[in-house]
């Protein structure tokens, strides 16, 4: 006798294929996002920048420092340093104050600029700070050409 048992085959509703397709899509997107994230340079933690209004003063100061180092190297600077002998620039008619033999500071509004000779080299820096008593005050000093982001 023939077997009349009928195997009932459930219609393929495509759920398994759909699930596999979605898993594949999400996997590809996740890999793409991770790859993109890895190529993006980490942004540095929030850094302050010198406002543009001080940009030219920073430039003049930078030039002066370079000239001082050249003069020192040529032994053309005497050791009795003063604001006048170092030809330090003024900012809105304000001059640098001499804090010690080789440390000079100028404060304007919320910003301070410092010039010092250390280990035979002249350097300058700025900080968002008032009441500077010392060129080595433990605050965040920034170089004159400090920038937040590159072009």
């Amino acid at each position, binding site marked *: 006798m023939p077997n009349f048992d009928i195997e009932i085959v459930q219609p393929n509703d495509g759920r398994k294929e759909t699930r596999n397709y979605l898993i594949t899509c999400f996997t590809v997107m996740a890999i793409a996002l991770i790859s993109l994230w890895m190529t993006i340079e980490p942004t540095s933690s929030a850094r302050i920048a010198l406002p543009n209004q001080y940009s030219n003063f920073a430039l003049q100061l930078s*030039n002066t420092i*370079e000239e001082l180092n050249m003069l020192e190297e040529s032994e053309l600077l005497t050791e009795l340093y003063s604001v006048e002998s170092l030809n330090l620039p003024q900012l809105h008619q304000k001059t640098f104050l001499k804090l010690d033999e080789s440390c000079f500071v100028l404060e304007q509004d919320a910003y301070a600029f410092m010039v010092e000779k250390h280990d035979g080299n002249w350097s300058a820096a700025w900080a968002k700070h008032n009441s500077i008593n010392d060129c080595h005050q433990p605050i965040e000093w920034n170089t004159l*050409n400090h920038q937040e982001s*590159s*072009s």
Partner: protein
Amino acid sequence: MRTLFMALLVLVSQSTMARLTVGVTLHPYYSYVTNIVGDRADVVPLIEGGFNPHNYQLNPSDIDRLFELDALVVNGIGHDMFATKAVERLSPPDLTVIYANEDVPLIANGEKVNPHTFVSIDAGIRQVYTIAKALGKLDPENKGYFLKNALLYAKKLRALKKPVQDLLITKDLSHIRIASTHGAYAYLLQEFGLTVSAVIEPAHGVSPTASQLQDTIETIKQQHIDVLFTELNMENRYVDTIERETGIKIFYFSHMTHGQYSPTMVEDEMSSNLKKLAEALGS
């Protein structure tokens, strides 16, 4: 006799070999470097004059030239990407790239920086010192000579400012409002305590659209802008429209990246720019 001749030949060839070949990407750097090195190095423009550096692409002869250089002085902050990208891509061996703006306090422009440091006296001087020091490292025998020339050149450039400074001592500039067609003059203007209230072109050499022009005219009227600085070597027909609609005074500055390369170009064109500035501020 032959020994003496051979010794002389060796000496001459050695001194020739030691002589630097320094490339430059923009006209002002040709002036800076020639004034620094005098007759003790060769200065070679990477590209011929007469091209817009903003959209130039190196051709095969430029690339050949690049590979012959010992050093290349670049702006490096957006004005000579035709060169910096090529150097990155091709990595010529034995080439020292000198980033002229390495030590310059830059003016922020949104998330970027204003690259026009060469249209300036103070920023120009800063670059001269950076370049001279870098060349001195490459050619230690001539380091003292390069630095001395750099100091002398800086003195010459500073002297150009004097006529304008003398004029400004007696003037109150607090009320003067300035616009420019291109953002090239910020470094120069800040040296005299001036800032630009409006920049018109969306990009160098790109004229504004009709609606952008209309917005600019409105801005000029609302902000009571007195003076418009525009570029000497660029055709700016819309400038006539602005003049007609606003009555603003227009003065022409050189962008300093056109024409033939010349050791005196910076002095000549900056001198002319400063005269225009004095005229604009005195009017």
